[in-house]
């Protein structure tokens, strides 16, 4: 784990609403695994005060890329950064997805929750990438897919791209069709989506892992501000997670606040 000062290499839009920021971090790239995250301190000012967590999206040589949508104070500040600007990157933090053999992998992503799944897809074989977005403007384009693009399937709330409705409906459709036992799920996205993924996985008795996007304080397990309910009670999602086996989480704990 390193807390390093880094320089923006590139900061560009990949769709109307989604951005990718990249920076050199030779030591960090050697260690980081799909599912792990980084805590950015974008300014030396105290407002915004806390760091912002981002999953690693892609690794290209010595360069780390993160995917983000400018929606809050931190991410809007990030979208204004230019090549050459400096910021602090802490990581890699948290655990990572567990690679599986002999199972067909279904990835289920919502919004920027696609990021760790694309990183996983870069390193491991998968069957389908199911991605859900609000509408066309925030869809992660197929040109971002590592390798084959044919197994990327979209859902949007308004039907402007792909299936009209929730990405979890695509997941249930696939599990209904074939033998659910052949599948394994990796999923990341907003809590209501993860709740649905967990509910469906339980219904069809499919194993899988969820990466949680809790708001975080420290990112290292000290503040206990990002706890999630597991079968054994609360644990810090930054340290015990962000990736959890679906079996270990409670459905109640995945309900939105």
């Amino acid at each position, binding site marked *: *784990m390193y807390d390093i000062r880094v320089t923006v290499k590139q900061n560009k839009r990949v769709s109307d609403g989604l951005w990718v920021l990249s920076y050199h971090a030779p030591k960090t790239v050697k260690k980081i695994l799909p599912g792990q995250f980084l805590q950015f301190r974008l300014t030396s000012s*105290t407002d915004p005060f806390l760091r912002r967590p981002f999953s690693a999206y892609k690794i290209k040589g010595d360069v780390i890329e993160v995917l983000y949508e400018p929606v809050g104070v931190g991410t809007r500040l990030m979208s204004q950064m230019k090549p050459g600007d400096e910021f602090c990157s802490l990581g890699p933090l948290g655990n990572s997805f567990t690679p599986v053999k002999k199972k067909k992998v279904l990835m289920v992503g919502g919004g920027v929750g696609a990021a760790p799944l694309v990183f996983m897809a870069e390193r491991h074989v998968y069957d389908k990438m199911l991605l859900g977005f609000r509408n066309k403007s925030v869809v992660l384009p197929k040109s971002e897919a590592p390798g084959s693009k044919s197994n990327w399937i979209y859902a949007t709330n308004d039907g402007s791209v792909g299936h009209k409705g929730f990405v979890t409906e695509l997941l249930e459709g696939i599990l209904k069709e074939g033998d659910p036992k052949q599948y394994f799920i990796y999923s990341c996205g907003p809590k209501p989506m993860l709740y649905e993924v967990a509910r469906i996985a339980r219904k069809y008795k499919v194993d899988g892992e969820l990466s949680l996007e809790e708001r975080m304080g420290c990112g290292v397990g000290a*503040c*206990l501000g990002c706890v999630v309910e597991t079968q054994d009670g609360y644990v810090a999602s930054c340290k015990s997670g962000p990736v959890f086996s679906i079996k270990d989480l409670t459905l109640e704990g995945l309900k939105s606040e």
Partner: protein
Amino acid sequence: MSKINLSVKIGKVAFKNPVTVASGTFGNTNEYEPYVDFSRLGAFVTKTITLKKRVGNPMPRIAETPSGMLNAIGLENKGLEDYVENKIPYLAKIKTHLITSIAASGPEEFVKMVKVLDKQKVVTAIELNLSCPNIRGKGIQFAKHAEEVGRIVKSVRDNTSKLLITKLSPEMGNFFEIAEITVKSGTQALSLINTIKGMAIDVYKRKPRISNVTGGLSGPAIRPIALRYVYEVKRMLDIPVIGMGGIANWQDAAEFIIAGAHMVATGTVNFVTPRASMDVLEGLEDYMKRTRVHSMDELRGSLKLPEHILKYE
């Protein structure tokens, strides 16, 4: 030039330097090990423990606010027994003083805890957290009455030979009356200040941004308030103070020491800059070199007050 003496003495305990960390902001064992050489700290302070395990408050527990954050963790911890069995063995390996922060429902429970901790050689000092603002209902209460605080401190004092520190918050009713009674009841230092109650609302959901509704405000936002309490307590009482509340760099730390603090603690800033305590330590040492100050005794309480203020002393 002669070497700078950074050591400070509180009671009979000599601390190698004045820089420590605020309880609850530095984990319980190895959370910050990758970033900080713990042996360089003046003391290591663990997150508040209680007699029995506490699960803490529901999420959301934290909310960012201008230059700070609100938290209502609710003293989540695994309890005293777990601390002694599972944390102390790790903490014993750290080559600096250990300060154990505790909270309890009243004098009897505090005494129960202190009797156990008193047997732990590795514990240098006990810090009484009488001021966590995020606890409701039965069990641990926010100690608000001076007599109650006095009873707690006195009964703890009678049951341990460890260095005794009491942590207070401006939220505790008559602050200066309470500070005075803790000193009279045998506390050997005060940790000033704990968080200040605050609130934030999500205007779209029309819901409080933390589930506890109110939470403790910390970070640079509260620093001037913390500094004022340290200054005023030092003017009033002859008691060593560990200053904390929004300290983010060496300048902030120097302010507290000049106002009279024996030691200083980095708190919420540890979440943002894990190395903050080390930056403070190095910055302080460099500042003392540059300004030709040779010891902490020389810097502490060296505030130059205007004539018209001194006149009324």
